[in-house]
């Protein structure tokens, strides 16, 4: 079928937000709160903002309560720096940690239902890597809403932005960023439900598209987290910062990837291989099952690679067991009822009497579209792109460096969401009242190619091959030969994908067409992850090279990866900001290149 694709409408606005999750909505609320008559359009690929991935965050939000006599902001900064394996930008760490409590109060005052202590104040709990006095003991620093903190944030940020009049375009994607004289002036948008293309001209544009976990076979991410924001940034010639920094959680439940909390191991759960051997004693003789996340992930992967994993016949995924059978009834009932509930719900087994299947599961992308402290997107020359901002998991101001601490992700999205809002407000003061004209360059040719493909391959099979490949070769363990092999295979998969024929050529609510578009995003993101991982010949944070197991000083820099033509990746460097160390204040020595040891 050959048909001319066309733009159905042009919409004008002050602010276009691509992605209506927690970060995008916090930004919208900030802009409309201070500038109530702004025209703000928020685009989301999911059917409704409330269905965004932010809603699934469980544990909590780290922030130092100024009323807490034991905790200090500098401790939180230190934990974040140490956790990042000395790759976070210290000016960003300082800004976010300092702004944390105010944002917690912002959420609370707007109706988030935080859990409370007996005094009616916000309850706090501990989380891995969060300490007092530079690692002395655990800090009670995370506020939370039961086990649904992300839902509380999402509902609050969505409610506030709706209250103030955001226009939502649900089930829609941004296919291409629009530029005029190097300034971003909006995006070409595909409205899935209607099957129509619209041009949105905007004075400021914020990318807030979330993560890219679907690159891997088992992930805790939503079905839609296919790295679209990174892909359209790459397509526009912009770089991606630290794409190789991908976090895995050791115990995702087979096969949906839902997290089985670290609590299971802290209450005495034992990881066992196919032969029921408690294998952690070979990898961490002292800490055993309580060793840090990355070490446990590598131990599980090693067992699986050496043939001591178990193949789940239903999901075709190899895993190990976590044994909870020896734990007392009291522990099961009082300490792990919810995770036990997940095993019952998704694997249909009783954790009190049966072994539970787990394996490392992709969780978070520390890398992303590079921004400065205010969320302005930086181009390859590290200059801000006028009118373009990025926030949330798709962005990287580099708060997390190469390894993110639990509870720091939703802290980042809520604080950076506010800062980006402030930055947009400043920009709107100066930008012309009407956005400049610009037209899409690639959108129609790409979509025409999708609709005209004549191959016999299936998108599902190519996607499955890609996810299996990335998990095996560019996942928890990486080696030069494995990554090189993956790069070759990705090129082949890309060729196959370009030929796919769609069984349904309709434009309206055509899931297959969307998956074809997402396939390009998955391929692009996979390629930059692989190329950056190949170049980083060291192990740091979540990036582990078997052939270079140590951290090396010559790699004390961020990666910047650009790719406008598939496979043609250009790599550059960005200096890590060490302003806190360089300022030389009290405790500054803790912000030097320290060892990440717990």
């Amino acid at each position, binding site marked *: 079928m050959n048909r001319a694709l066309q733009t159905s409408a042009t919409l004008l606005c002050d602010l276009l937000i691509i992605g209506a999750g927690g970060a995008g909505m916090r930004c919208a609320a900030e802009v409309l709160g201070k500038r109530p008559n702004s025209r703000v359009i928020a685009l989301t690929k*999911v*059917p*409704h903002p*409330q*269905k*965004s*991935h932010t*809603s*699934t965050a469980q544990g909590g939000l780290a922030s130092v309560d100024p009323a807490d006599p034991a905790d200090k902001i500098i401790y939180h900064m230190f934990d974040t720096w140490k956790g990042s394996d000395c790759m976070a930008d210290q000016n960003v760490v300082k800004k976010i940690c300092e702004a944390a409590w*105010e944002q917690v*109060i912002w959420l*609370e*005052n*707007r*109706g988030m*239902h935080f*859990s*409370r*202590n*007996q005094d*009616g*104040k*916000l309850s706090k709990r501990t989380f891995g890597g969060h300490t007092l006095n530079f690692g002395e003991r655990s800090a009670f620093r995370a506020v939370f809403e039961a086990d*649904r903190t992300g*839902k509380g944030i999402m*509902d*609050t940020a969505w*409610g*506030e932005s*709706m*209250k103030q009049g955001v226009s939502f375009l*649900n089930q829609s994607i941004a296919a291409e960023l629009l530029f005029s004289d190097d300034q971003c002036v909006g995006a070409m948008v595909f409205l899935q*439900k209607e099957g129509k293309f619209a041009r949105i001209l905007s004075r400021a544009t914020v990318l807030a598209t979330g993560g890219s976990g679907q690159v891997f076979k088992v992930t805790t991410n*939503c*079905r*839609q987290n296919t790295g679209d924001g990174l892909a359209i940034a790459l397509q526009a010639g912009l770089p991606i910062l630290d794409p190789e920094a991908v976090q895995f959680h050791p115990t995702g439940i087979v*096969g*949906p990837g839902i997290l089985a909390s670290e609590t299971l191991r802290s209450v005495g759960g034992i990881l066992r291989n196919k032969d029921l051997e408690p294998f952690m004693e070979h990898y961490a003789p002292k800490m055993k099952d309580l060793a840090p996340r990355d070490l446990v992930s590598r131990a599980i992967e090693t067992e699986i690679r050496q043939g001591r994993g178990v193949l*789940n*016949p*239903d*999901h075709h995924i190899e895993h190990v067991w976590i044994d909870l059978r020896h734990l007392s009834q009291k522990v099961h009932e009082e300490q792990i009822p919810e995770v036990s509930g*997940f095993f019952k*719900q*998704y694997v*249909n087994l009783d954790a009190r009497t049966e072994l539970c299947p787990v394996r490392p599961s992709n969780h978070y992308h520390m890398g992303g579209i590079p921004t400065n402290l205010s969320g302005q997107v930086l181009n390859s020359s590290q200059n801000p792109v006028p009118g373009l901002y990025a926030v949330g998991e798709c962005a990287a101001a580099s708060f997390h460096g190469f390894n993110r601490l639990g509870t720091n992700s939703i802290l980042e999205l809520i604080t950076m969401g506010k800062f980006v809002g402030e930055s947009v407000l400043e920009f709107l003061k100066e930008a012309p009242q009407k956005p400049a004209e610009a037209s899409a360059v690639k959108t129609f040719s790409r979509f025409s190619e999708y609709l005209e493909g004549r191959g016999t391959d*299936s998108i*599902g*099979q190519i996607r*499955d091959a890609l996810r299996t490949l990335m998990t095996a070769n560019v996942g928890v363990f990486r080696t030069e030969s494995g990554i090189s092999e993956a790069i070759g295979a990705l090129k082949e998969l890309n060729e196959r994908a370009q030929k796919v024929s*769609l*069984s*349904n050529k*309709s434009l*309206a*609510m*055509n*899931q*297959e067409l969307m*998956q074809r578009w997402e396939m390009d995003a998955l391929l692009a993101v996979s390629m930059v992850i692989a190329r950056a991982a190949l170049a980083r010949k060291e192990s740091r944070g979540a990036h582990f090279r078997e052939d270079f197991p140590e951290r090396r000083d010559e790699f004390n820099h961020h990666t910047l990866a650009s790719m406008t033509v598939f496979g043609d990746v250009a790599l550059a460097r960005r200096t890590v900001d060490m302003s806190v160390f360089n300022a030389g204040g009290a405790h500054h020595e803790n912000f030097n290149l320290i060892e990440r040891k717990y």
Partner: protein
Amino acid sequence: MEKIYKITLRIHRYDPDIERSWIQEYRVDAGRILRFVDLFRKINDEQDPSLTWNSSCEHGQCGSCAVRINGKPMLSCELLVENAVAYFNTTLFDIEPLTIAPVVRDLVVDIEKAYEKVNRAKPYIIAPKPAAEKAAEYCITPQELEKYVAATRCINCFCCAEACISSPKAFLGPNALLASIVRVMDPREQEKTDRLALLYSDQGVRRCHTSKACSFVCPKEIDVAYFIALAKSGRFDPNP
């Protein structure tokens, strides 16, 4: 232990381009712990890429994947093959889209239309009471929070609205009312007049037939009917 179920799915389909509806039968060999979303994906990958359905988080937190399975509204990400066979005592399943909003294609409904009712209930604080101290949190005791916290767990999957026996045209529906009731019970909300006017309007709680179907089907196990009953009892109404 490997066990394979031979499942037949009769999926209600709709093609908006030709405005045609039909029922299509798919046979799938499925392992015991595959979920219904896994079956839909398997159909896409192996048999029919054109079948369209919705899901997002796929672990019961977002509510995007609600459909009717053998007449019962459920989250297809939470229903395992093994449990479905045991619960319905069959390997034949009718899969239909929810009826609370127009169908866009196949199993995808225009959820925005359904959300219009939630939006009317204003799912946010309209007029926040100032906190006792500036830049501090409100004081809410756990006992006070406990009275309404269950109602805050709603994910707007619309299973309750689907199961409700009251006329959907004349009734706001259980999840929309729940959104308002949460804020009526929230000590931080000062605006009660408009909320009560909505709750006791001719589309409000008095339209409820108290079948408790909402509580019965809620995937988050919220006793929706209890909260509606609180409102019906006149408990929130200053002038009953």
